[in-house]
């Protein structure tokens, strides 16, 4: 009983510390504005750091979206980048001067719709497949959609599309992306606690059994797929106007595709904050390891090694450190200390 209380208190403390850190990190970029400058506040972050924060928020959206399908429902999608690309292209076409020429807000609002519709359409046949076959079918879909987009002139062909550049809008895009990230986490949290979420978990654990006890498996799976698509598409839409350039390589990047999965699994698939943690850790590693010339290749080797070590020793993700069953977790450490101390 005592130990349980302690566990709860520790977890709450950790959550508060984590929340405070997030708030601080989110407020710090405000010191980069002219107003802060005129008040004489020191500038705490520079433009490249704002860019990294925006990227982190973007991957939080994508990893959380993937987590709904791959983590919660147990359908390991390998093609979620298709939704990112479709969202990005939807937004880019919407705001393009020579195409729909809508305001930016409308473009971003439209961005989740097309991927969600697409997911509902292709989800019906694709979600009948399982395991490796589902993984590869989704990967094939992503590559095929990307290739088609590259060959359609209305979508800019191989050159891509150039949404108008907004000057000095770093902070606007940072907070847009952070808003999307919060939306993704909140939506995931609501789903996790709902009848819908329990249905998805039931499908993951045993699809036949779930269907027998009255879960409409097709509707649930397609629903989760569409929600993930809408979230990922939203991130894509914001990315298109933020980057003010989108082409097939960027929109349907296989790097993004793999990264969002890695982040979700590294952090802890099927949990609420696992993907967020995974994004922070992996993005931190990538940013610090990747950009240093000659060291970069050695760093990549280190990253590969880290992945291997994680998979072998912390198989349920980093989130397992906090109160999980891993031998490296805080809970295990506490138990061990108590046993030796008493």
């Amino acid at each position, binding site marked *: 009983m005592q130990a349980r209380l302690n566990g709860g208190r520790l977890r709450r403390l950790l959550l508060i510390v984590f929340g405070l850190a997030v708030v601080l990190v989110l407020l710090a970029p405000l010191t980069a504005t002219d107003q802060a400058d005129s008040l004489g506040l020191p500038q705490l972050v520079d433009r490249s750091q704002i860019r990294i924060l925006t990227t982190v928020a973007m991957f939080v959206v994508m990893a959380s979206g993937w987590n709904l399908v*791959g983590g919660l429902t147990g359908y*390991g999608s390998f093609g979620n980048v298709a939704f990112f690309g479709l969202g990005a292209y939807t937004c880019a076409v919407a705001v393009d001067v020579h195409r729909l020429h809508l305001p930016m807000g409308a473009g971003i609002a439209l961005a989740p719709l097309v991927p969600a519709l697409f997911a509902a359409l292709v989800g019906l*046949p*694709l979600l*009948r*497949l399982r*395991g*490796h*076959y589902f*993984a*590869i*079918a989704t*990967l*094939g*879909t992503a*590559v*095929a959609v990307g*290739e*088609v987009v*590259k*060959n359609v002139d209305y979508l800019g062909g*191989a050159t891509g599309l150039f949404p108008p550049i907004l000057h000095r809008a770093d902070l606007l895009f940072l907070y847009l992306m952070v808003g999307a990230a919060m939306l993704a986490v909140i939506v995931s949290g609501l789903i996790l606690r709902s009848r819908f979420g329990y249905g998805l978990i039931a499908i993951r654990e045993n699809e036949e059994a779930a269907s027998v006890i009255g879960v409409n498996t097709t509707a649930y799976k397609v629903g989760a797929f569409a929600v993930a698509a809408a979230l990922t598409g939203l991130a894509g839409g914001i990315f298109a106007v933020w980057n003010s350039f989108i082409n097939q390589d960027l929109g349907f990047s*296989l790097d993004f595709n*793999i990264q969002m*999965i*890695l982040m979700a*699994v*590294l952090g802890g*698939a099927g949990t609420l904050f696992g993907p967020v943690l995974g994004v922070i850790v992996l993005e931190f590693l990538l940013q610090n390891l990747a950009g240093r010339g000659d060291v970069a*290749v*050695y760093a*990549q*080797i280190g*990253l*590969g*090694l*880290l*992945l*291997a070590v*994680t*998979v*072998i020793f912390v*198989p349920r993700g980093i989130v397992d450190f906090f109160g999980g069953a891993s031998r490296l977790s805080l809970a295990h450490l506490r138990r061990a200390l108590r046993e030796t101390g008493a």
Partner: protein
Amino acid sequence: MQLFLQQVVLGLLIGGIYVAVALGFSLVWGILNIVNLAHGALVIAGAYLTWLLFAHAHVDPFLSLPIVAVALFAFGYALQRVLINRVIRAPLFFTLLLTFGVNLMIVNALLVLFKSDFRSVTPSYSGSGFGVAGVQVPYVRLAALGVAAALAAAVGWLLNRTRTGSAIQAVAADRDAARLVGVDLRHVYALTFAVAAACAGVAGGLISTIQAITPTAGEPYTLQAFVVVVLGGLGRVGATVVGGLVFGLVETLGQTMVPGLGAGWANAIAFALLVVVLVVRPQGLMGRRP
């Protein structure tokens, strides 16, 4: 008509390369139930070994294939024994994650060793060929197809005609039953992966003769191996051969023969085909129902 024949020949020739690349991938997937994301990296490692032997010791690329196969066999055995065996019973995504990590390590080790310059293996006969009824056949590609066929036959023989092959197939059918009758699981896993790595190395050797290589050139081959295995069906050598040849044909014919489509559509066609096959016939063109 002549153009059509030429494209059919080119498609089959490139299909041979796809067969060689996909053989090992299919073996690891079918027997160990691992989708090996490092497969393309192993292919390129084989290509670099071939280049090394060619550039520094002037060994003909086709003669160095056995050396490459042995080297990759040893590497594959060690890799499986030390690393991948530890997560062999873990769910799908752990093995994916682990092989992705291995991929990163191999690709970047190659970058350290060889830099990112383009390398190519150009023996005196590369670029020449012969013509039959106006259809051009390059020697190198024809030889590559021949080697791929021999490789497929060798793997088929190993799996179906030897004691080791029986052990491998027994493990694929039922791990626990295989262990009960005295099969050393860890050894058989490692052996399977080693054979797959050797196949990948040979495929890499072939690839080094027909295209310039860089350490990062392997990723497309992992993807193509995926497609070939799914097209043909999992677990049988014959299915992989059919899958590779069909994939080569469809890719080549699709971009030259269908009006309105150009070279840019090759991948779109290939992957659309993949998705259709998966949805309509998940067991592949040649596979049995699971």
